[in-house]
């Protein structure tokens, strides 16, 4: 028989707070994490704004020896996982660590390590690189580091699907716990690619906003690159109840699809199939949903197509949904985005409030759903969705319910 899967811990490192409580408090207050970059030189960048994890001091969390093997992305992942585990109160006696999975999504892995080392090699003519270059930049480093730092000895691997990485990771962890293959999972996503090389790559796509991120708004001018990490602890409802754990919410469905269409243009059909998949998996009907935490990148194309996909799936109920985008505050944290947004979705249900879509200037006729403009709104939510749609046409949607 399938296990019910609940969330018992959250951890966050974000542009609007280095911890889960500060993240949520700032998210509801509409604090914007977008500003001119300080972690990299902006001299040669046409777009100088990012949503970086500000004033982050790794030395306060790790000793020198640990830091030698941790790229910034793995630092974020480990901190988020540690906080989530502490929050959950789990202890790993009696072989539980072997029945706990570690599944961490990341878009690109250790980009700071790669950028720094390529600069040494190609520009400065270095003869050799640091021996930990490869194990720091590999895409599974965040998952491996979380597993090592937290002592988790069950199935562990990375999931990479660009902007949907964390949602795919959490979805797979959900399926593993539901099936009984593992009892618990530490899962989420991390990315930290605010480097000169990656920012020039984003610049070349010409999708970045010069001012700020305004999802679903008129005069929106594109996305803003962010960074960070979020992790959740999943466990079977039975296990959580047996140890009298505080239950933050239940994951009830997961839908995935591929557009098989275009590398960068979003597709209504692909998005709609993922949304329908999550609803079907959860045995929820469209009318059961009150809130959607949107992918909402702030590009002209995503927000219009996501609006279409929601209308296609929800019909007349779409007009009654609250739909907000955290990216207006967090920027696009890429492989971390889906995990940050799942944490936000869980808390929205638990605290009965829909976080706002800030920086909103007014309606765009192509995005005519209720995006909770500029101010959070009290809202009784029984069930909600969290949408993630990646470059490459890879779509993932999680369905969450109050327990």
């Amino acid at each position, binding site marked *: 028989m399938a296990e019910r899967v609940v969330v018992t811990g959250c951890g966050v490192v974000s542009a609007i707070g280095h911890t889960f409580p500060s993240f949520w408090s700032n998210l509801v207050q509409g604090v914007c994490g977008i500003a001119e970059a300080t972690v990299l030189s902006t001299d040669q960048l046409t777009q100088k704004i990012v949503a970086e994890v500000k004033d982050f001091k790794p030395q306060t969390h790790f000793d020198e020896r640990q830091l030698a093997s941790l790229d910034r992305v793995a630092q974020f992942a480990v901190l988020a996982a540690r906080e989530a585990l502490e929050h959950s109160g789990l202890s790993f006696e009696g072989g539980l660590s072997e029945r706990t999975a570690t599944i961490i999504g990341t878009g690109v892995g250790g980009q700071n390590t790669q950028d720094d080392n390529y600069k040494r090699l190609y520009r400065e003519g270095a003869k050799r690189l640091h021996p930990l270059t490869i194990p720091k930049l590999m895409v599974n480093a965040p998952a491996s580091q979380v597993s090592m730092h937290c002592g988790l000895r069950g199935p562990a691997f990375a999931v990479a699907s660009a902007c949907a990485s964390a949602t795919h990771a959490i979805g797979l962890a959900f399926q593993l716990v539901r099936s009984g293959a593992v009892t618990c999972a530490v899962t989420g996503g991390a990315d930290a690619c605010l480097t000169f090389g990656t920012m020039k790559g984003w610049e070349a796509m010409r*999708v970045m906003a010069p001012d700020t991120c305004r999802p679903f708004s008129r005069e929106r*001018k594109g996305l803003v690159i962010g960074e960070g990490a979020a992790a959740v602890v999943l466990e079977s409802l039975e296990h959580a109840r047996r140890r009298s754990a505080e239950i933050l919410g239940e994951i009830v469905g997961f839908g995935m699809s591929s557009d098989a269409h275009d590398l960068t243009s979003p597709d209504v059909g692909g998005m709609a199939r993922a949304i329908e998949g999550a609803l079907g998996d959860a045995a929820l009907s469209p009318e059961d949903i009150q809130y959607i935490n949107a992918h909402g990148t702030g590009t002209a194309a995503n927000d219009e197509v996501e609006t279409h996909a929601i209308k296609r799936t929800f019909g007349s109920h779409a007009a009654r949904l609250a739909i907000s985008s955290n990216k207006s505050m967090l920027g696009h944290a890429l492989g971390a985005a889906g995990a940050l947004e799942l944490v936000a979705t869980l808390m929205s249900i638990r605290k009965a409030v829909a976080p706002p879509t800030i920086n909103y200037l007014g309606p765009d006729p192509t995005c005519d759903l209720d995006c909770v403009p500029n101010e959070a709104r009290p809202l009784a939510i029984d069930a909600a969705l969290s949408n993630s749609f990646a470059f490459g046409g890879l779509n993932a949607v999680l369905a969450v319910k109050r327990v």
Partner: protein
Amino acid sequence: MDEVAADTMAIIAKRLPADKHNLSMTDRLEDLGIDSFSAVEMIFDLEEKFDVQIPFNSNDNRTDLLTVGDIVAAIKKLVGRP
């Protein structure tokens, strides 16, 4: 046709199937089937060819770069050979 116009039109034509390579200045990019990301690649090719910077954000609803002639005129202005 001068060299800048010919080179610009050849780069635009690269984005199109062979049967549409015969471009005229009044052809609209949208009608030719050049979508926003195809336009981004085209602009990269133009910047590389002429060593210029063309301000372009695919999220903008631009009204000044709609036709083949608009692109040719923009390039000529940037390279200083009107």
